[in-house]
């Protein structure tokens, strides 16, 4: 069965990552520092303001940020783009081209195994945090919301992965991709809802953000989960997200096909 080999890749990915468990542990511990900073700054803001901020109170704000950390671990690719770019730059791509395996499928399996392991390793500190803030937790009321948030989250993960993959493909043409990756990354960071929930931004910006892909990388699935988007907005949002999924998939697919034609197999 063709699926079998991708499952094997998934397994290798798990083992590979587990070798560097210290790296993981450091990441999950240090990752909590900015979260603490965020919680403290919002505590200070709500203390000063004595009123809600665009429909959020202190509790729902903290819950929002806890969810961003969880989602970040679940779906945000960490080293995938660098590894892919290195495969191309150092000529290791040659080995994949002769294998009866789709490179996108191979990478997707690795991505899935990284994400699974990250989530498992960071689950303990996050669970402890959620327990600490347990009074702030609000779960969706209906099964449909659970289902739709899971669908939206999966799409968000795939969009993030396809974007990272497409960017890494630039390494077929240029040597140094890190600047381009970081430029896009800064847009993703500020516009996907990492720094603050997007609905506290000025109205005109929110209109633009509904069209752009960034909010569908993180903010939208969380809003679905929090039941902040409902009815017509929910369905149109899911439709736009599906469009972005298709566009980014197409980009990933085409970039690879074009890139391989340009490929020079350095060192091989």
């Amino acid at each position, binding site marked *: 069965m063709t699926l079998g080999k991708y499952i094997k890749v998934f397994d290798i990915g798990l083992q590979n990552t587990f070798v*560097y468990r210290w790296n993981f542990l450091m990441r999950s511990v*240090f990752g909590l*520092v900015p979260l603490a*900073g965020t919680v403290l700054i919002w505590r200070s*803001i709500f203390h000063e*303001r004595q009123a809600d901020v665009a429909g959020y109170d202190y509790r729902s704000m903290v819950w929002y940020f806890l969810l961003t950390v969880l989602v970040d671990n679940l779906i945000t690719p960490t080293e995938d783009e660098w590894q892919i770019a290195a495969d191309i730059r150092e000529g290791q791509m040659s080995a994949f081209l002769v294998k009866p395996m789709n490179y996108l499928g191979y990478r997707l399996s690795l991505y899935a195994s990284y994400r699974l392991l990250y989530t498992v390793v960071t689950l303990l500190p996050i669970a402890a945090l959620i327990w600490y803030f347990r009074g702030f937790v609000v779960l969706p009321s209906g099964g449909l919301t659970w289902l739709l948030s899971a669908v939206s989250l999966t799409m968000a993960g795939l969009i993030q992965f396809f974007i990272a993959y497409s960017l890494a493909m630039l390494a077929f043409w240029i040597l140094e991709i890190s600047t381009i990756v970081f*430029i896009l990354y800064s847009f993703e960071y500020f516009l996907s809802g990492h720094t603050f929930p997007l609905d*506290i931004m000025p109205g005109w910006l929110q209109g633009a953000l509904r069209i752009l892909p960034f909010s569908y990388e993180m903010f939208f699935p969380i809003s679905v989960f929090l039941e902040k988007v409902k009815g017509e907005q929910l369905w149109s949002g899911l439709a736009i997200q599906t469009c972005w999924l298709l566009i980014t998939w197409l980009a990933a697919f085409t970039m690879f096909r074009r890139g391989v034609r340009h490929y020079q197999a350095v060192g091989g």
Partner: protein
Amino acid sequence: MKRYLEIYWIMLRNSLIREMSFKANFILWMAVELLWFLGQIVFIEVLFQYVDRLGDWTKWEVVLLIGTHQLIGQLFQAFFYANVANLPELVRTGKLDFMLLLPVDSQFAVSTRQFGLDNVVNALVGVGIVIFALGKMHVVPGPWQIAMYIPAVALGVAVHYSIMFALATMSFWIVRAQGLIYGYYNLFNIARYPDSIFGRGVFRFVFSWIIPVIVVANVPARLLGRIFDNPWPLLAHLLGAAVLAVGLSRALWRFALRRYSSASS
């Protein structure tokens, strides 16, 4: 001392020559840093739509703080970042051996090889923001304030350096240390927040004394923007934190070197 200055001058020249041969990259890196900085300003702009002040900090004082943080962070990056970030790789591949053989202090040798000119430009952007914020606050700092601000900025750079250096030194024990660089960014993420938000708890104690990231930008910003505050306790805190951080990271380096067994030889 004079010898070290001469060596540093030569390395500085070399890295400037190298940098100028990749002009497009130079400009792109500058753009990356500027984007991050703009994002922070937008963040403050959004927050202050909802409040007038955070503790005893007004909006423009927070902008002054962020400009100062930019200045300090970028100066650190210009002088040290690339070198310290490369340390785990030196340890992993065993290239550290060559550094240890050089007839200069080993910490000096690994910390000063490269210099980032783009970061200097971005540090100047930070200075611009600081001046702009002072204008909005209608504060004109006297020669005294400026005379204290400059060494305070230097002490801040020293704290950045020591913390990152200590993290990188961990690579003697942990082979893959990208997580450490990630750790640096995460720790200094809170350095640009006004100190008043941290309350009086354990968190504040840890991050103002043990890993003193909170004082790095807050102290210089207060020294410059608050003419009527008593500067001495602030300056003493920053000085104490910097001396402690530099001393401890140096001790850690020496301890780590003693157990270095080199790779592949």
